């Protein structure tokens, strides 16, 4: 099993979710983070003074999947999140040795889906 962590643009969340559903990936955990990457921040203006924030709002997805779903999931994220501009984000894939469903106590493959 793998744990996939993706950092995407906030305004791409809806599209990524749509693509994931298409790929039959329905389970995920989402949070709001700030990212520092290659993307230059939007210039914001406060009382006439420009400020180029270097921590930008991003969405972090955490998705645990079985091995045969990894590619599908990664592809779905990419096709939902890509604009071709810097800031599109990254996907990290980690090994996931164990997974447990709290409700039933199931583990492993059964638990993940």
């Amino acid at each position, binding site marked *: 099993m793998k744990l996939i962590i993706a950092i995407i643009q906030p*305004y*791409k969340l*809806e599209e990524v979710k749509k693509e994931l559903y298409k790929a039959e990936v329905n389970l995920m955990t989402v949070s*709001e983070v*700030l990212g520092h990457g290659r993307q230059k921040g*939007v*210039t*914001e*203006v*406060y009382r006439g003074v420009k400020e180029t924030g270097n*921590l930008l*709002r991003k969405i972090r997805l955490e998705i645990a999947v079985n091995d045969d779903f990894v590619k599908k999931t990664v592809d779905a994220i990419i096709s939902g999140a890509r604009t071709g501009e810097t800031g599109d984000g990254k996907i990290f894939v980690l090994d996931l040795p164990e997974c447990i469903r709290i409700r039933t106590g199931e583990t492993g493959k059964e638990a993940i889906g």
Partner: protein
Amino acid sequence: MINSGDTAFVLFSAALVLLMTPGLAFFYGGMVRRKNVLGVLMQCFIIMCVLSLQWVLFGYSLAFSPGNSFIGSLDWIGLKSVGLEPYADYAATIPHQAFMIFQAMFAVITPALIIGAFAERMKFSAFLLVTILWATFVYDPIAHMVWGVGGWMRNFGALDFAGGTVVHINAGVAALVSAVFLGKRLNVGHAVPPHNLPFTVLGAGLLWFGWFGFNAGSALGANGIAVNAFVVTNTAAAAAGITWAVIDWLKNGKPTMFGTITGAVAGLVAITPAAGFVGVIPAILIGIGVSCICFVMVTAVKIKFGYDDSLDAFGVHGIGGIFGALATGLFANKLINPAGADGLFLGNPKLFLIQTGAVLVTIVYSLIVTVTIFKVVDFFVGLRVEEKEELIGLDLSQHKEAAYTVLE
């Protein structure tokens, strides 16, 4: 003769009505998604600025100076001849400028109401143009026809105590037009959860408070009519608030905060034209009625027809205003206000017809001119932000600001 009590009353009423625009900003601002809240606040605030100026420069003259029966003259531009002596045709006991500034606050809030319909997707520059044109070519003439010396609806006998037609129907129709013109927001289902419902509640509280200035102040003196308007305003808001809560309870299982304040605001809208002409029992009935109708509008009609009136500016203000104007034709009572007229339920069907006529004329006028304005502005500037700007949100894309920070 200037009366200090009346002057104090009208000035504070004006201050209360001014406060309604920030109140509306929070009422609306809480409802939108977090990325668009400044967009809404900014539109409300800039209207306070732009319309305040438009009004003293030429708006007041267009609306209230003696002109023809459709529009005022330019005799009072820059407040020429609008001094500190009373102008008895409007208010005999307060300085003329007190009347002018009280009316200014109405001119400010009316276009602000429309914001609710096109929230979350309109270009700021287009919004600004539309606002100025609309204030000049829709609001000012309608105000003149209904309230201005020589205005034909005024002479016709139409009753609009504090702005049912001028303010609410007018803005409501423009709201519908704008929602249709701009089309639906992206990625938006039926209900968009308010990003900060307490802000919306705060806004509703300030609106209720400010509405005392709006309605009671329209008596233009601290007299019995003002007291009556004050009392029925409070009563109608209360009745409408409960009514919505009860409908929610019956239909959706629980009474909701958002529903209750929506109802209260609908009640405030509906009592506006009637406030100086009806008593407390009609006020209750008006409150109950308006919540029922608006509930149907925003939960069924809007969805059926598929226009995206984002924050229900048409569904609450337009419909509430129409209902209130007609209800005035039903319940008006000369015992409350001898300067008014009796309504249908007191045996005078004529008033009801007049009210219906005034409503229709306002709708038609507002519709035609608003459509024209939107067409023109769309042609020259374009109405809607780019898709990506909309997805990112108006705060960053239109104003280069974020409403909240994430860390400390």
